[in-house]
């Protein structure tokens, strides 16, 4: 038996058909296997990565006995180390409390430089937007987040400091209330 073009072609066609089936079946099974335990691929190229310098310490670290006019300011340096261009927004949520967030004036400012040498650059949130309670009820996720810090993927990594200030309003209604808040800086690729 000799090798003919027909035989070569036939084997190519058969091979292609088998491959299509195998590839689609395999890809479909892998993608739709129903597992929710896929380990996040931390090394995936084209990722959005944000880090901060707070070492797990809250900006407002267990402040108690606050009275009207008391004001607390703290600063956090947020760095973007992702590989794709993205836009970073700020949103928040309250994880516990009796409503003090409605009596706290909130200011969030993005600056240049570092926390130690903060130069204000953009007003992300201030009194004209509402108090902390308004922030927590409106900026709840990325799509409703505030600020539009645009970052570019790749090196050099970009860092900006954010200064967050809370001031107790002069209202006796705040007496004895408390709140525990999470601030989230989230980026999505553009």
């Amino acid at each position, binding site marked *: 038996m000799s090798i003919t073009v027909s035989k070569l072609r036939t084997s190519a066609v058969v091979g292609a058909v088998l491959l299509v089936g195998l590839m689609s079946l395999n890809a479909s099974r892998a993608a739709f296997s129903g597992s929710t335990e896929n380990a996040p691929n931390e090394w995936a190229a084209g990722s959005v990565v944000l880090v901060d310098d707070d070492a797990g310490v809250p900006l407002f670290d267990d402040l108690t006995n606050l009275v009207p006019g008391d004001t607390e300011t703290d600063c956090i340096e947020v760095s973007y180390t992702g590989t794709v261009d993205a836009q970073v927004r700020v949103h928040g949520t309250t994880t516990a409390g009796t409503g003090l967030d409605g009596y706290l004036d909130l200011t969030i400012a993005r600056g240049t430089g570092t926390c130690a040498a903060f130069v204000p650059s953009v007003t992300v949130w201030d009194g004209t937007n509402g108090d902390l309670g308004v922030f927590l009820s409106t900026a709840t996720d990325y799509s409703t987040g505030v600020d539009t810090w645009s970052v570019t993927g790749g090196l050099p990594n970009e860092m900006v400091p954010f200064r967050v200030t809370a001031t107790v309003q002069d209202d006796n209604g705040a007496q*004895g209330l408390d709140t525990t808040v999470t601030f989230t800086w989230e980026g999505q690729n553009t």
Partner: protein
Amino acid sequence: MTVRTGSGETPRMRPIAAAGYVVASLYVYLLVALAGVAIALPMIVGMSAFVISSGSMSPALSVGDVVVASEPTIGSVAPGSVVVFENPVDPDTWVTHRIVGSNADGSFISRGDANLQVDSTPVDMGQIVGIGRVVVPHIGLPAHWLAQGRFVLLGLWAVVTLSSVAFMRVFERIHRRSDDAEVDSQNGGYDDTDLVVDLNVDDPVGVRQTDKIPVSLASKMGKPAATLLVFVASFVLIVASTAPTRAAFSGSTVSTGNSLTAAPTFGSIEFVQTVDTVVCGGSSSVLIVPPGGIPSGDTLLIRIALSGARVDSTVTISDGFNSYLVDADVSRRNRARMVVARANIDVALQEGDLITVSHPDVRAESVTADHFSGLADAAPIAVDMTSGRSATPSADVVAPGGTSLAYGAVANVRNVTHSEASGWTTIPLIGSSCPRQLDNVAAYRVASFAGPIDYTTTLNRTTNWVEALIVYAAG
């Protein structure tokens, strides 16, 4: 004469060339088959096709994969499903992520496999346009490159593909006789694919001709060209019939546990009670200390409201033990006058002790004493005295800061209603008519800031009034 153009020598088929032909053919037919599945499958089963254009679902889905998705139905979306849904950030685009949970309100939690955090926006059933059923890998890459303007990549792919087709065509052309030779060797010579012309001059009857050569597969030169047309058309169709989805990489960092707690009461300043009130007392009013007394360290604020009094008429206060100092004295001709005096109690007063307030005998008066704790034994840190004829008595001070008591006192002609701005605690109004009508009003607030403080009370009619706004430091 017989001419036979059948099998003769065919070019030797080199093994490398043959292997190359198989590889090229495999590639081209694979392309066609994948494209066919990606287009035909959705059409046959009534589904939609989407091209993955970002890697946030890797490794399950890669850029260029085509996802064939079915219509979402209640119950078909569950944790583990890969779904295509409207991008909450840009509703004209789509996102392909995996459902990893659900919320109490029925909405779903989604996450790209390659993202560390779940998507921060929940996905409603109404936003889901398809549930992934089949993946046709890689076949959407040219469509993706075209959409992204990656013309270099697109061009390279076109060159590789066209070269493969050209190679196939050349190979088939060169070795078309190999098919012929194979058939001939089985038939011992000739078959009906061979052209046989019999020009027998000895047969005057005629020329015997075989039938026309049936065109063998090997000689169909047009086949590779047709193949090329098919998959060019396929890719055009894929571009037209699939939709690019953004798999939306996301990442975040948080500051958690920010906890703030307000003091149970603001400052240690407390309003204990109104000690006593005397109206229409004549030329003096005697206040009686109630049960509980007034401990040392606490403060008494005496409010004397007069109508028809001259500005220079004297007011004196005595309890026999403590000294009383006038902190504010404001009048509007003889219409109304308010005096606020303070005693920082050194010698405690007991129940039944008397505080005697001497004042001119005028046409209306009321005297009252408010008992506060937590005030410093010191002069006021800010005072404003105003008067006017309107429906909104008002005074302003600038507090220097630190926990303090702002105490506003108003005396107005006529008995009217009052309403304060929020944040102020009202001390019950004292009205007198002896015979002239007079109101004696006060309100207070505890504050801790440096800045303006305003005390305005709204009356239900215009009248003459005087107001004193005094700020006392805590201590």
